[in-house]
C-alpha cells in the first residue's frame, strides 16, 4: 500500500497531456525572447534572483574589483527596466550564493558562503526595505551554505540548507522557520558525493541533488511513508547521466494534473564568465521508487544552471550561463520519441532539441557576453540574473 501511495504521487497522468502537435506543421522555431529592460550592475558579480510581486532580490558572489559578494540588492521591477532601490550588506560574507522570498512574500532568506556559513532572514513587511530579523549559525554550517531553499511542509516553514565542504562530508541541514526570528535546526544529515548542491521541496516531498549520487527523493510529510523534515525517509534515487546533479524542478502540469517529470540540471565544469558545461536532464518520476531519465538537452560549450517554470503554459525556463536563457515546451510526453529524436543510436534518451521542444532563446542578442545564473518566471515576465551584467527583465514565451 505504501509503495502504491508513493507511486501515485507522481503517477496521476494516464493522460499524457497536450504535447506539441508537430504533425503536418513545420517544426516551431525558437523565438528570440524580447528584452524589456536591464538593471545594470558592474560593481559586483550577480548571483541568484528571487521575485515576489513587483520586487526582485538579487544576491552577489565572489569578489569583483575588490568588492565582495556581500550585497543583497533590492529592485523595483514594476516597470520595464528594473530600478535598484536598496542595497543591504551582510557582515562577514564573501558570497551570498542564494536568495529566496517565501511564497507568501513575508520573508526573505539569504545564504552566506565561505566561513562563517549562515542564513540571514529578513522581514518583508516593506518589500523594498527588507529588515533583518535573525541570522542562523550552527557548527554544522560553518563552512558555508551553498544554497538555501525555503518552503512550507504541511503549512510549517522550513529552510533546507545545502552545505558543501572538503573539510567534512557535505550535508543537508533543515531549519525550522515557524518563528523566523528564532530559527531552530531540526536535521543535519551527511549526504552527496561529493556535494549536495540544492534541493526542491513540494507536496511534502524533498528532492536532493547529490552530484554523482544523482537525485534522491525523500518523504518529508507527503510521501505516505512517515517521513518528516526531522526524519526524511528515502523513496527513490536516480543517477542521471554524467552525474553532477545540481538542481531540480518538479513540474505539476495544471492542464492535466500530470506530475510526471522532474527536470535536473547538471553542472559540469565551467570557466566562470566564459563557458560552461552540463546538460538538462528529464527524469520520469511516475514511479517515485524507480525514477528514470528519459530525455535531455545539450548545448555545446554551455551548461544549464537554475530553473523556473510557467506551469500553466507548460514552459520551462532554464538559465544557461553563457548561452543565456532557454525556454522549453515541456507539456505532454517527453519520454517518447522517434529513433531520429533520440540522443544517438546507443543512447535511448530523447533529445528535447530534436523533439522541437525548444521554444525560446534569450540574451544571445545583446552584443556582449552574458553569464546567466538564475531565472524566475513571474506574471508573464522572466527575470534573469546575469553574473556579468546585473538583472534582465524579459517577456515570457507564450504557447
Amino acid at each position, binding site marked *: 500500500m505504501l509503495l502504491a501511495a508513493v507511486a501515485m504521487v507522481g503517477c496521476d497522468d494516464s493522460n499524457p497531456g497536450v504535447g506539441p502537435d508537430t504533425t503536418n506543421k513545420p517544426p516551431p522555431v525558437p523565438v528570440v525572447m524580447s528584452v524589456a529592460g536591464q538593471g545594470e550592475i558592474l560593481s559586483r558579480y550577480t548571483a541568484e534572483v528571487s521575485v515576489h510581486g513587483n520586487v526582485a532580490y538579487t544576491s552577489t558572489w565572489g569578489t569583483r574589483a575588490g568588492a565582495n559578494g556581500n550585497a543583497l540588492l533590492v529592485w523595483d521591477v514594476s516597470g520595464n527596466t528594473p530600478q535598484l532601490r536598496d542595497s543591504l550588506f551582510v557582515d562577514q560574507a564573501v558570497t551570498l550564493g542564494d536568495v529566496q522570498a517565501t511564497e507568501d512574500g513575508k520573508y526573505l532568506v539569504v545564504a552566506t558562503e565561505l566561513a562563517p556559513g549562515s542564513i540571514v532572514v529578513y522581514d518583508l513587511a516593506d518589500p523594498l526595505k527588507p529588515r533583518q530579523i535573525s541570522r542562523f549559525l550552527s557548527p554544522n554550517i560553518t563552512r558555508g551554505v551553498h544554497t538555501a531553499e525555503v518552503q512550507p511542509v504541511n503549512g510549517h516553514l522550513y529552510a533546507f540548507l545545502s552545505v558543501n565542504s572538503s573539510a567534512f562530508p557535505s550535508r543537508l541541514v533543515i531549519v525550522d522557520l515557524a518563528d523566523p526570528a528564532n530559527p531552530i535546526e531540526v536535521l543535519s544529515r551527511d549526504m552527496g558525493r561529493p556535494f549536495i548542491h540544492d534541493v526542491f521541496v513540494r507536496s511534502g516531498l524533498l528532492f536532493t541533488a547529490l552530484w554523482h549520487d544523482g537525485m534522491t527523493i525523500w518523504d518529508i510529510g507527503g510521501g505516505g511513508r512517515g517521513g518528516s523534515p526531522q526524519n526524511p525517509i528515502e523513496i527513490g534515487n536516480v543517477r542521471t547521466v554524467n552525474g553532477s546533479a545540481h538542481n531540480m524542478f518538479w513540474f505539476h502540469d495544471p492542464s492535466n494534473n500530470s506530475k510526471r517529470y522532474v527536470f535536473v540540471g547538471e553542472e559540469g565544469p*565551467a570557466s566562470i564568465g*566564459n563557458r560552461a558545461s552540463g546538460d538538462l536532464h528529464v527524469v520520469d518520476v511516475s514511479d517515485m521508487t524507480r525514477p528514470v531519465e528519459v530525455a535531455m538537452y545539450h548545448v555545446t560549450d554551455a551548461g544549464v544552471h537554475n530553473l523556473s517554470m510557467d506551469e500553466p503554459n507548460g514552459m520551462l525556463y532554464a538559465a544557461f550561463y553563457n548561452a543565456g536563457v532557454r525556454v522549453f515546451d515541456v507539456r505532454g510526453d517527453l519520454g517518447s520519441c522517434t529513433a531520429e529524436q533520440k540522443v544517438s543510436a546507443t543512447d535511448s534518451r530523447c533529445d528535447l532539441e530534436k523533439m522541437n521542444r525548444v521554444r525560446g532563446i534569450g540574451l544571445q542578442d545583446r552584443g556582449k557576453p552574458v553569464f546567466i545564473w538564475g531565472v524566475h518566471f513571474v506574471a508573464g515576465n522572466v527575470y534573469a540574473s546575469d553574473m556579468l551584467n546585473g538583472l534582465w527583465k524579459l517577456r515570457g514565451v507564450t504557447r
Partner: protein
Amino acid sequence: MAAGLVTRIAAKDGRTFNEGYITQPMVMASAAFWSGKLQALAVYNFEGNTLRRGELSPGTYGEGYIDRRHPHTHVHELMLGARGALGKAQLSLYAGKGIVPFGSEDPMMRPFTRYPANHHLAQILERAQIVAAARIGRVTLEASGFNGDEPENPRDWPNSDRYFDSWAARATIAAVAGFEASASAARVKSPEDPAGFGLNQNKWAASLRYSGTSNNRVRYAMVEWAQTSEWLGPRKDLWSFASGLFEGSARTPIGDIAARLERTSRPEEQRDETPFRSVRPLLDFGILGRTLWESVNVGWSRGFGWQSTGNVQVTPFIEVSHHRARPLERVVIVSPEVAFGGLRLLSFSAGVRVGLGAMRGEMGRYGVASSVGATPPNR
C-alpha cells in the same frame, strides 16, 4: 639546509608587500646497504612550521594557495629501493613517498631559491608510489604508479583509497656530455579533490638540460615545456595550462649569475577569505578564467664553504624579478589584482642559504635513473 630571505614585492599602481621567511628548511638523509644495491632516502621538511601562510610568489598556485607557494609536507621524501641488472639493462625498483618521475627536477635543487610559477605543471611531488626504472646505455625509462591526491596540508599523508589511481612515465636520454633530454607524460586522477571526484589531469613535459662541471663557466641550463589539460567524465580537454621556461646559471668572478625566463598560464580560482588562498576542492569544479604569467628573473649568489667545521656551506643570494599577468580569456572573474592591486609586479629577495653536511646533488630520480647526466651545481 635552510634559507632565510626577505622579499619585497611591489605592484605598479598597487600594493607593496614586505615579508620574511625561513624557507626550504629540511633534513636530508640517505643510507646504502649491500654495496648500494639497497638504498633508503629521506627528506624531512619543516616548512609546515615556518611557512604556514605560504611564500609570497606571484604566479604560483597549488594545494590551496595562490600567488603564494605552499609549504611542503613534513615527510617530503621517504623512499626505499633496490637495484640490480638483467643482461645489459640496469634495473631498480623503489617504493615509498616521494617525487614522481615526471617533468623537471624539484625547483628546490635549482639555481633560484624562489620557485617558478609552473611548479604544479612541471613536477608532481609528495605522492605514495612505486617507481620502476630501467637503464640501457644512455637511455633511462621510469614509470610510477601513485596516488593522485595532492597534499592538503603539511601533515597530510597520501589517501590510502587513492593509491595507484594515477601514473607517470619519463624517458631520458643522455645525449652528449653534460646534456640530457627527457620527455614525460602522466595521468593524474582528481589531484585537487581528495575524495576523487574532481577534475582529472593529463600532463606532458619535455626538457633539455645541460649540467656543466666545475671547470665550465656555464654551470647549468635548462629549457622546458609543460602542459596540463583537465577533464572530467565525458568532457575532455576542458581547458589546458602550458608553460615554457628557460633558466641557467654561470660562474663569474663575483659569484654565480642566474637567469630565468618563464611564460606560464594558470587557472584563477575562487579565493578564500584571504586573497592568497583558494577554496579546495573548487566549488562545483569551476575555475574563474585563466591568466598568463610572464616573468624575467635574475639572481646572484656566492657560496662559501668551511670543510673544517663539518662541511658548512653558506650562500648569500639576491633575486630580482619582474612579473606580468594578463587575462587569457574574455572574462577573468577573479583577477590577481585582488591580491596585488596591479598586474605588473617587481620583486626583490635577498637572503642566505645555509647547508650543513653532505648535500644531495639531485632529487626526484631514484635508483638507476639517478645517475643520468651530471647534476646541477647550484647549491
